[in-house]
């Protein structure tokens, strides 16, 4: 990917989550709820607490989880009506008018990223705050995080912070062996 080539191209949105900085304050979860006006029982992002190692080399970490906007998304390929689709800017979106609520996509997602909307019956999930992106605003969780865990940007712009971080050896994609090609890169402590 060279600079002149990518100029003027559509963005390819991606996120970096640096778990070494995460303190588990759940501000991102609250911001997401607020932004997407979700009922209490539904959420698009969550923070998993994990314990690892053996005493005395024992530790725990917080692992923020959400839709990974996979480049090879199983949820999109299994959706029988085409309600779930991949946008050219990398966002995996849902046309709720076409969703019949078969829940096949929920079962296909390895990241438990999808939820049924109790009120309307369709499936919904993290949209990388596509509405905010249109107004050149960062996704709610990114802007809210007090410790700067989340970095958001355009992978098609080689000078962006996210491009550099994604290319570095520090980052991993979770569930890589399932071939989902996720758009969220993690730094795991």
């Amino acid at each position, binding site marked *: 990917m060279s600079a002149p080539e990518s100029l003027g191209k559509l963005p390819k949105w991606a996120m970096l989550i640096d778990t070494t900085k995460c303190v588990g304050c759940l501000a991102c979860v609250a911001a997401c709820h607020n932004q997407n006006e979700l009922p209490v029982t539904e959420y698009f992002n969550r923070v998993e607490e994990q314990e690892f190692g053996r005493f005395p080399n024992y530790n725990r970490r917080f692992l923020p989880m959400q839709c990974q906007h996979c480049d090879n998304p199983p949820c999109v*390929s*299994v959706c*029988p009506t085409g309600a779930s689709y991949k946008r050219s800017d990398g966002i995996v979106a849902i046309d709720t008018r*076409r969703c*019949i*609520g078969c829940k096949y996509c929920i079962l*296909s997602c390895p990241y438990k990223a999808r939820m049924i909307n109790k009120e309307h*019956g369709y499936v919904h999930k993290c949209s990388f705050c596509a509405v905010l992106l249109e107004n050149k605003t960062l996704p709610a969780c990114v802007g809210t995080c007090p410790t700067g865990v989340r970095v958001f940007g355009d992978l098609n712009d080689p000078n962006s912070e996210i491009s550099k971080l994604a290319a570095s050896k520090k980052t991993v994609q*979770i569930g890589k062996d*399932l071939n989902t090609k996720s758009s969220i890169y993690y730094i795991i402590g």
Partner: protein
Amino acid sequence: MIYWSYMITFYLFGAGVSAGAMLVSIAADFIDPAKYKKIVRTGAYIAPFPIMAGMIMLIFDLERPWLFWLLLTTFKYTSIMSIGAWIITFFCAISIIYFMLNLQKDYLKLKTKANTVNAIKAVGLILSTGVALYTGLLLSTLTARPFWNTPMVVVLLFVSAVIDGLAAISLVLCLRPDCPDCCITAPKTGENMNEVIKNNNTFIHTVDFILLYLLLLCTAVFLIGIGKSTESAVSALGIVTSGRLSVLFWFGFVAAGVVIPFIAAAYKLYTKMSTHRPWLNFISALLALTGGYIVRSVIINAGQLTQAILF
């Protein structure tokens, strides 16, 4: 979390019984239409209905059932569910045609060209194979679900579907063993009714025995395969063999679904039980059907209760 309720289990079960009944009926017809006409007719009469009941269940398992028609205005080749919805639609159509075809031999006495009839049977064979494979493929293609994500699920559900179809035929035959009009045209003059029943029973018992032997192998290979697989698959197996699904698994899946029908089939073959003993046939057919339902129920639930461990 359980997303697919018992209605999906019933849908897969109904699809399996229908596809199995159709397959058995057409296969028996290829082998010897005169000798096995009871099986051919009964299979044809059963085939359209369980799957239609299953479709209704499927629609009501949707969160937005009123939009189900979108399934039939879209075709997405990447989605097994979309492919399956189409296969099932065509299967329903052909099974109704096949039903009429057999009905007309008994009642309507219309003339149909031999070529047309053969074409209907060939298409029926392909579509029923498709339906029987689809129920397994729907599950086995999800990498996120370790209990499903093995090709053995497809083979297992396929074999089980044919066994269920056979059991449904056997059940109906038990209810009206020598009924002249529901299962068979009245015996031709000189044809011995007992002989007809005997032939058909022998066919059922032989095929049943072979398939149950295969099912036994499939089940063993399926479980060993999962037990030797990833950490999440092993934990799925734990739920099934010793966790919350264990009673259903050991008594329903293993005992009622596989082992007892196998022993019963072996016994019937061994004692050359070709004379008609409706009660024994009835009970083992009922057991096989119950088992077939529970096999699907265990697989559906176990797959949903466990997820691939990512990190």
